């Protein structure tokens, strides 16, 4: 038998001799990530089971990131619920609220490694596929099942092979690629499927870029998005972990439901128009759309590569007086690095607002909530109705370069030519 990456990793985590798409398996979980959105609710569910312990407190990554620091009393209470849960069951990797956004902090700390099977109480848990592991989101009840048993059922997915060639032209970024892909296959195109990224173009993608891609595969419905291992990954992991790992590569004769080929040099700046991530357009089609807010950051695009390109565009300039620009680094580590490189000063001098690391604005929680009829261009991953605030507000998803170029102009503009 020959296997795809998803089949291989699910097979090594299940007690089965053979594996094929459509099959149900019970798989052993290597790591589970939980944040405050569901933390308190999981505590309530878990209590119903009457257990005093969890299966392995060393395999739980617990973090507060969505509403930090607490903007409301109810959010503060959610945090209290979560702290109580972590203390009661003795979670070892309890990160508190100062580290940053789960999907950035977990890989930064070396918790995502090749060959692992990771689940998390957040749909963008797919992000860790950059690190050659299988990872996906689950709900509160499934988290309780894992906490109790260390296992979870999975339906073995079909895989889609995506061959990448070439490299991005100036002003074009990984966000433009993943938005284009979602546009091509639609928000339903990868439901229950695993997206596998192959090709000689992968070596031209930084780890930051790959994380933007695997972060948003769920917007095409995908269960997993996974990259093959290479030297860039090896180098990255060497700085993050001393733990042993084994790279996983798919068999050459593995079967894919479909194959797609992309030349990255043909990708151009792309946006998702309101109010669905599948509502894709070329940036020139929406150029001139006036904006009230430009948001740069989050787990999709709040990494060094993103902040550097934004600072490069902003250096010596001011954002448009009618626009507020908010910059939210994805983690404290990134915040510190941006501070060291002088990027935060560039943002502040351009009149942008720099916030602590949080999911706040992306989920319409705090630090950048939109009012009625306001328009935002955002580097985040979702633009559903009301996602970032009032239900009449509108969100365009775009790359950090497009967000920054638009912040200067006061309306959506193509970033090419500014870099």
């Amino acid at each position, binding site marked *: 038998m020959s296997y795809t990456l998803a089949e291989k990793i699910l097979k090594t985590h299940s007690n089965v001799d053979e594996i094929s798409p459509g099959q149900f398996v019970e798989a052993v979980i290597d790591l589970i990530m939980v944040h405050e959105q569901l933390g308190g609710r999981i505590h309530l569910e878990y209590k119903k089971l009457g257990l005093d312990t969890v299966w392995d407190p060393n395999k739980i990554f617990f973090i507060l990131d969505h509403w930090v620091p607490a903007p409301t009393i109810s959010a503060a209470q*959610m945090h209290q619920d979560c702290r109580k849960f972590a203390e009661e069951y003795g979670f070892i990797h309890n990160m508190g609220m100062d580290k940053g956004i789960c999907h950035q902090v977990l890989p930064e700390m070396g918790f995502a490694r090749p060959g692992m099977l990771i689940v998390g109480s957040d749909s963008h848990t797919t992000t860790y596929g950059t690190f050659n592991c299988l990872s996906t989101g689950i*709900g509160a009840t499934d988290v309780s099942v894992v906490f109790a048993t260390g296992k979870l059922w999975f339906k073995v997915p079909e895989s889609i092979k995506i061959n990448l060639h070439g490299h991005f032209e100036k002003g074009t970024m990984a966000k433009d690629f993943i938005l284009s892909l979602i546009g091509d296959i639609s*928000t*339903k195109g990868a439901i229950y499927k695993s997206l596998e990224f192959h090709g000689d173009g992968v070596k031209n993608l930084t780890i930051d870029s790959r994380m933007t891609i695997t972060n948003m595969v769920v917007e095409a419905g995908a269960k997993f998005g996974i990259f093959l291992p290479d030297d860039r990954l090896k180098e990255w992991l060497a700085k993050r972990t001393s733990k042993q790992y084994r790279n996983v590569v798919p068999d050459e004769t593995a079967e894919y439901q479909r194959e797609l080929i992309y030349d990255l040099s043909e990708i151009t700046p792309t946006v998702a128009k309101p109010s669905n991530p599948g509502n894709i357009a070329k940036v020139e089609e929406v150029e001139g759309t006036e904006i009230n807010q430009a948001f740069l950051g989050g787990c999709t695009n709040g990494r060094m590569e993103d902040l550097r390109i934004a600072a490069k565009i902003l250096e010596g300039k001011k954002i448009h007086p009618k626009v507020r620009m908010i910059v939210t680094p994805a983690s404290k580590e990134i915040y510190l690095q941006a501070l060291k490189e002088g990027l935060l000063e560039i943002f502040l001098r351009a009149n942008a607002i720099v916030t602590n690391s949080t999911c706040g604005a992306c*989920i*319409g929680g705090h630090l950048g909530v939109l009012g009625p009829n306001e328009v935002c261009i955002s580097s985040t991953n979702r633009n559903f109705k009301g996602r970032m605030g009032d239900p009449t507000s509108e969100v365009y998803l775009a790359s950090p370069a497009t967000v920054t170029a638009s912040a200067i102009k006061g309306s959506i503009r193509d970033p090419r030519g500014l870099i």
Partner: protein
Amino acid sequence: MDIIKGYAYILEDDISTDDIVPSHTLTMRDSNDMVKHTLEFIDPYFSKNVDKGNIIIAGENFGTGSSREEAVHVFKLLGIKAVVARSFARIYFRNLMNNGIPAISLKWDLNQFVKEDVIEISLLKGIIINKTKNITLNFEKIPKFLMNILESDGVINQLKKIL
């Protein structure tokens, strides 16, 4: 759990978890407080009139978006008996089943169901009958291990029996 009776409530493609439980309700710690906001941007009267629409018949990619299980808890609290969709976002599918609400995949079309049609479903036979229109449609039966979860009214109850 086999026969489910109720009334159809029709929803389009790509209904997200943000549609079902809007972001502004997410810091409410008790799902009971969220219930009246269910689908409020799509239909402000949904929660009030739910007795006339307690079987959801939806389009593609139902429940797309986040892991927020509150988007299933509010359905459970409102007494939604089943969700039929052309396709489901996978986390939402799991969350429904885990909470004892049947998630039924069915490629239906617009002339087969209208709001408030009288619906009867047999999970064991894999059929859905629109009694108002006198139409019977077949769906792929729910696998045994998922039926067991539904029989227990959710995976937590099932797990309690084993542990």
